């Protein structure tokens, strides 16, 4: 299904609402319109389980009057609804407080050409539904042919096309299209009360970049069966090796701690530490909204600020927070183009790879834990404390010895960044937040 109406209709709608807001007394107004076409299929045990096809639109805006902000959003795009919401917002702003930091970004002539960012793959939209269904069926079929797999959570294939439009009273008006596609598979192995589970996925902006169903199936099987027959271990302090997906999750936590909104609220242990060494020289972290074809790439953020490459941590030194206009003004800094409308979000936020092959990192551990999955939350940005349920493979004399489960790992992100001993060379952009294999010198692993 392709949405009716061209993107320029959406842009006209956004620009019309900006003009309407100004005419109703808003000092500033910024309007975003999104349109999305979605297809997804879930298959399980060789049959289609669900098929979803839909298109939707939404509008979100904020107005500023006398330094007071009010915002609104709607999935009802009827002109009378949108105009009422604009009038309500202008009126409601009166009830807020004057905030000298509020407002839109300074207008800027800088523009990034969306064409150069390779975000749109026409094949994603034209691909026949039957092919999409077959990809999911094939991935699951290959996995189920392995006798060690005893049940399936199913495979899914999904595509998404999104059109984003933004117009504001500071003169900005822009739009871009982006495609997403993904193939995923979840499996169970083991019998009755001794089951293990895991999944694998591939997710890209371009259909041709996806891993094949066979690659996804093989990886999902391997990740699942390697956990069979886990042992418990004693509570101890050991080196912990993070697999790339685990490093990504750690980076997600780090993002929350360098997000400008957490910094001015003093809700991060990294508040007030710009320019300080927060990790050792092996740590370089970058947020880059301009990497062509990546999941976190876009020409501009939710305030129309052009995307950029920001070095967040340079060889251990905290160089920059990630900011929207408001957080930047509160902190006396310049926005980094990370606004997501409400707060800040990562673009492509990653830990730069190091020199070591992952096998070499495992070989370096006389004893240790290869962390493969975590369960639960247990992240506290105010202190940097981490405590999570964990699944892993126990390392003895540089070799994988056996799987372990019902353990927890705990540590503190600040200490961990100082104790990174090795960084892998296996960075893959599997999501907007990612990192390679990493070895932390020591963490507490709690078991029996």
């Amino acid at each position, binding site marked *: 299904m392709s949405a009716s109406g061209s993107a320029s209709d959406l842009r006209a709608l956004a620009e019309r609402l900006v003009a309407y807001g100004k005419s109703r007394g808003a000092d500033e107004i910024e309007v975003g319109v999104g349109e999305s076409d979605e297809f997804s299929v879930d298959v399980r045990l060789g049959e289609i389980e669900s098929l979803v096809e*839909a298109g939707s639109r939404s509008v979100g805006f904020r107005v500023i009057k006398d330094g007071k902000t009010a915002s609104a959003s709607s999935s009802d795009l009827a002109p009378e609804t949108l105009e009422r919401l604009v009038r309500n917002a202008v009126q409601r702003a009166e009830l807020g407080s004057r905030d000298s930091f509020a407002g839109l970004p300074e207008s800027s002539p800088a523009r990034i050409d969306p064409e150069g960012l390779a975000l749109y793959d026409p094949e994603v939209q034209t691909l026949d539904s039957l092919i999409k269904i077959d990809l999911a069926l094939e991935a699951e079929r290959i996995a189920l042919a392995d006798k060690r797999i005893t049940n399936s959570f199913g495979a899914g294939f999904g595509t998404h096309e999104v059109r984003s439009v933004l117009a504001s009273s500071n003169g900005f008006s822009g739009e871009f299209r982006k495609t997403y596609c993904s193939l995923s598979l979840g499996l169970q192995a083991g019998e009755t009360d001794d089951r293990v589970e895991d999944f694998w996925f591939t997710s890209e902006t371009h259909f041709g970049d996806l891993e094949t169903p066979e690659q996804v199936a093989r990886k999902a099987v391997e990740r699942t069966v390697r956990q069979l027959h886990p042992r418990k271990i004693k509570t101890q302090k050991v080196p912990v090796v993070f697999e790339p997906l685990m490093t990504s999750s750690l980076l997600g936590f780090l993002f929350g701690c360098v997000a400008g909104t957490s910094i001015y609220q003093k809700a991060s242990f990294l508040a007030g530490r710009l320019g300080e060494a927060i990790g050792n020289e092996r740590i370089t972290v970058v947020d880059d909204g301009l990497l062509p074809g990546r999941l976190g790439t876009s020409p501009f953020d939710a305030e129309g600020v052009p995307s950029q490459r920001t070095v967040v941590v340079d060889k251990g030194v905290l160089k920059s927070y990630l900011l929207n206009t408001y957080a930047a003004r509160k902190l006396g800094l310049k926005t980094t183009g990370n606004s997501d409308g409400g707060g800040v979000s990562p673009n492509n936020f990653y830990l730069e790879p190091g020199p070591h092959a992952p096998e070499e990192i495992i070989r370096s551990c006389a004893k240790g834990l290869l962390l493969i999955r975590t369960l*639960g939350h247990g992240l*506290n940005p105010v202190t940097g404390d981490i405590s999570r349920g964990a699944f892993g493979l126990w390392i003895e004399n540089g070799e994988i010895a056996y799987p372990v489960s019902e353990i927890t790992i705990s540590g503190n992100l600040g200490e961990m960044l100082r104790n990174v001993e090795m960084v892998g060379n296996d960075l893959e952009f599997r999501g907007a937040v990612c990192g390679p294999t990493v070895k932390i010198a020591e963490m507490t692993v709690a078991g029996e």
Partner: protein
Amino acid sequence: MNEPNPIRTIAFEDHFGLAPEDLRRTLALALESGGDFAEIFLEYRAYNFVLMEDDIVKETAESISLGMGIRVISGEKTGFGYANDLSPEKIRRAAQAAAAIAHAARPVPAIDLRTATPTHDFYPVGEPCHRLPLDPKIALVKEAYGACQAFDPSILKVKAGIQDSIQFVTVANSEGLLASDARPMAKLTCTAIAEKGPVREHGYAGGGGRIGLEYFRSVLGPEEIGREAAREAVALLDAREAPAGEMPVVLSAGHAGVLIHEAVGHLLEADFNRKKTSIFHDKFGKKVGSPLITIYDDPTIPSFRGSYNIDDEGTPPRKTLLIEKGVIRGLLQDRLSAGLMKMPLTGHGRRQDYSDIPIPRMANTYIAPGESGRENILRSVKKGFYADRFQGGQVEDSGKFTFSVSSGFLIEDGRLTAPVKQATLIGSNIDILNKIEMVGADLAWSLQTGTCSKEGQDVPVMDGCPTMKIARMTVGGRS
């Protein structure tokens, strides 16, 4: 309630501009390719938000969500389409998208829609929040903020907010059901950050439910919420690292309900049992835990966040016995699983919004009270861990689960001693259910602010439990 609830008097036609005849025609279209069952879910939700931080009312927001989801079931397969433009052409396209799941066209039987009006109302609302101006809501936020800030000089930052919404839903299906509900919701929350020397800690509190604004004057006041957030943050300033290793664990009444939600509730959702991925799927009628444990899910508790008059498939909900004295007695059902498993509906088919397919979900899940006194439970522990406040948890189908403790105490010689901070508890559900040694008489409930996530869908839930003792459990602290 003597008076009819004022928020339920609006007919669905007025929200969606559709007449029963439009729905009937759309259902017939959805069944044209030969599905067994078709359903329309219409939703209109209006939401308001006020945020206070840095001593000012920083932002207000209003949001409207309008749309419809159309589902066709054919055997075990589901076709689904949705639209947020309720024009005839978009509705037709959504119906055709859903119909595409079936491939055996046959004559569509006549559909006779009969309005089912529930006789109960679980939302005893005095002043519906969505009809009130912003000023009294701003006043509540300011009071919570002020009480939090004034609690102690160590309070460094405060954030307080109020959110309220009204959700009108109408469900029509090819079996002739036509049912509507108007669900109010409100929550007032406060977070605090306290500082002492180099140490900073965080506290959180909140309240609400399917209530009117009067709740925050008569049941739980804004000052109480503000002070509680501050109290937690300040107490943590002097907390030490949590212990690590296996030890006896006592769970506080109310907040520890998250344990039952994770360890039991999810794995008794019917879909995981129908697909045989849940560790419980072959244990119906069998003993899986201590005879001290009886567990219910009850979506009919008035005012509770997890309650509803009808579920998102139009089914009136039932208080459902899940575990009786350690034996599995029930599952949480939606239409698809109940039909395929040939079991009765329980009214637990829920969806985040019109763009989602309904799935079995918890509502208000709790452990029935036992007989032990809290003091006796504590006295029975020589050395252990008392888990007081929680951040949430997670479970996988194999039964491995965790939950995160945000603050607790050491238990030494039967008494609570040093406060301790963040730790994760991990266990395997059947193992832990069998190790529950004592259950208190003091059933209490978690905060009326909780949300549960499953397959990308968030729905409001509540959980509760009395004080409980687990003989041994792995505590993931650092010392």
